[in-house]
């Protein structure tokens, strides 16, 4: 019940296209949903995040869509660029004792072709 399921595993998009990555969860105790971007050999970088009381959040070319009733959220990358080629992880946060921990999806490897 603490899993976060992410799809697709890999994605190829042409430059200028829209990249869409989806995640689903079961546990309604999750209360914060971030997306991370990771380049090879680097640590993941926080990209954008959303709370469950909001249905959409946009930051530049990156948008999170959140469907609380369906327990699903997705990342949309508009006007995808070759520099966006990276692995993307969704995650969900849950309170544990006096802290929070993140449960990560399995990742999506995005390749944007020039």
């Amino acid at each position, binding site marked *: 019940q603490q899993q976060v399921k992410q799809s697709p595993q890999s994605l190829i998009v042409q430059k200028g296209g829209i990249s869409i990555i989806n995640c689903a969860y079961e546990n309604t105790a999750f209360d914060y949903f971030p997306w991370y971007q990771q380049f090879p*050999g680097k*640590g993941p970088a926080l990209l954008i995040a959303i709370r469950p009381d909001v249905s959409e959040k946009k930051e530049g070319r990156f948008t999170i869509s959140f469907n609380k009733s369906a327990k699903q959220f997705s990342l949309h990358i508009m006007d995808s660029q070759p520099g966006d080629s990276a692995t993307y*992880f969704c995650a969900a946060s849950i309170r*544990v004792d006096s802290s929070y*921990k993140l449960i990560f999806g399995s990742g999506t490897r995005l390749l944007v072709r020039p």
Partner: protein
Amino acid sequence: SQTIHQWPATLVQPVGSPLSLECTVEGTSNPNLYWYRQAAGRGLQLLFYSVGIGQISSEVPQNLSASRPQDRQFILSSKKLLLSDSGFYLCAWKKGLVSYEQYFGPGTRLTVT
């Protein structure tokens, strides 16, 4: 601004040898600290987290242990490495209970031979 450091950046160790990876955070106090492991081409597995000095919670009690001797220092250890301990080890921090955002360090690439 806050900065998180990890060292070493890369490490090659023989099976059965000990391990010590260090993580330090600058520019904040009393952070929540986390250790993750990432196998090649895989997701992130939470190993340990800590809310304060000497307070360690274990998610995957296998061949590894963690310690927090100082407020902004988090150490990952093993007495005897296994081949399966190979991976990319990431430290992360968060501002206690006041925020959700978790920030990762640059990672340590461990290869056990």
